């Protein structure tokens, strides 16, 4: 363990725990939705890339769940698979279905939505991870340094797709505009810490909501300016806040699907 190990009081442990649930649940749902694209992306290179990104992101979620386990929150796999929706702290954006239909039947998924969600989510993750590299909780800062190196490639990938589709045909631009609207409707809780805001922000664990929003905006602004477009506005006060356990029905459906196999035999050793 680190030599500068701090004595953790209850308030600090609670704040770290709250933040870790938000980080873990975000990457867990994001990578699950990404994995549902396997075999369906527009071409094979996109398919390999998206699978690889989903695999990395699942690895990031696993690290955050492991940190929770180390803090005594319970077994990492169980935290990932068996918590009901009301206990989940992911943003609404990450739980949304990929489009109409089911993966196993007729998936009429929306690629424009996949690109828009991944672009804005990855930009937000970049800002959060950069901030976490300076976290007062050293084990989290160490993990963030690792995540940042992998995120570099994810961001490069989604930046490329986003820029190309945004500068493409009229049909593509229209589809992207519709997708961005859907994504931004759900963006209100991405930078929110919910009712844990004061606790999380006061312990030097990560930057404030306002600080991170500002950096996110600053990072994406040059591209929007180059296309003579406005940077989309993050809605104030989300209708539902995933950080407080408020979710859409999509999360229930997603959790039922992703935990189907391990629920079938909870005693199995993986």
């Amino acid at each position, binding site marked *: 363990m680190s030599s500068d190990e701090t004595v953790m009081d209850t308030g600090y442990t609670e704040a770290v725990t709250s933040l870790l649930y938000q980080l873990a649940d975000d990457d867990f749902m994001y990578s699950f939705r990404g994995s549902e694209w396997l075999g369906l992306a527009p071409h094979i290179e996109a398919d390999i890339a998206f699978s690889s990104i989903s695999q990395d992101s699942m690895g990031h979620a696993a690290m955050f769940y492991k940190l929770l386990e180390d803090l005594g929150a319970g077994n990492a796999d169980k935290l990932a698979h068996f918590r009901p929706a009301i206990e989940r702290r992911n943003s609404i954006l990450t739980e949304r279905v990929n489009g109409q239909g089911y993966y196993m039947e007729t998936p009429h998924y929306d690629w424009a939505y996949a690109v828009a969600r991944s672009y804005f989510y990855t930009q937000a993750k970049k800002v959060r991870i950069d901030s976490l590299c300076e976290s007062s909780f050293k084990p989290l800062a160490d993990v963030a*340094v690792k995540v940042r190196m992998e995120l570099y490639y994810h961001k490069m990938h989604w930046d490329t797709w986003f820029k190309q589709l945004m500068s493409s045909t009229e049909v593509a631009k229209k589809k992207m505009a519709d997708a961005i609207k859907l994504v931004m409707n759900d963006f209100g809780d991405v930078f929110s810490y919910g009712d844990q805001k004061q606790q999380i922000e006061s312990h030097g664990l990560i930057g404030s909501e306002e600080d991170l929003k500002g950096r996110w905006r600053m990072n994406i602004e040059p591209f929007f300016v180059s296309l003579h477009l406005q940077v989309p506005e993050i809605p104030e006060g989300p209708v539902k806040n995933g950080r407080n356990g408020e979710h859409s029905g999509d999360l229930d459906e997603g959790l039922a699907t992703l935990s189907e196999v391990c629920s079938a035999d909870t005693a199995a050793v993986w």
Partner: protein
Amino acid sequence: MAASVQVSAARVYDVLYKVKDPEIDSVSIVDLGMVGEVITDGNHVKIVLLPTFLGCPALEIIKKNTLNAVKELPEAGEVEVEFAYNPPWTSDRITEEGHKGLRAFGIAPPPLYFKEDGSWHVDCAYCGSTYVTMENIFGPTACRSILYCKSCKNVFEAMKPVSTLM
């Protein structure tokens, strides 16, 4: 009756050189730069491994193989293997021997430099030609990219460069 056996770190390293990446069997975990630390205390051995990519499914296999290999040492008692994230694994930890092993497997070693725009270049793993194109930055495993050599007309892979400067 306490046995005063002292396991030497050098002996542990000799064994670790025989533990290979299950997906690239020409390179040992030592040459991949995955061994962070070997700590011995009497017959107690602790090996700290640095994971390459966090979502890599080979990590648990590597951990198990490491544990089993070191337990084979007759003088070793309790053996522990754990992952750590500090220092982070970076691709410049791969040794010269590791570079050779990667090439033997058809994988170009990671480049040492990034260009100003963040892109990077490697030469063909087979013929060494510099006349290559990037087909996909993402490849068959988290740590690899797919490239094409216009000289020998082979598809080859490259180990993705990973650095804290990214």
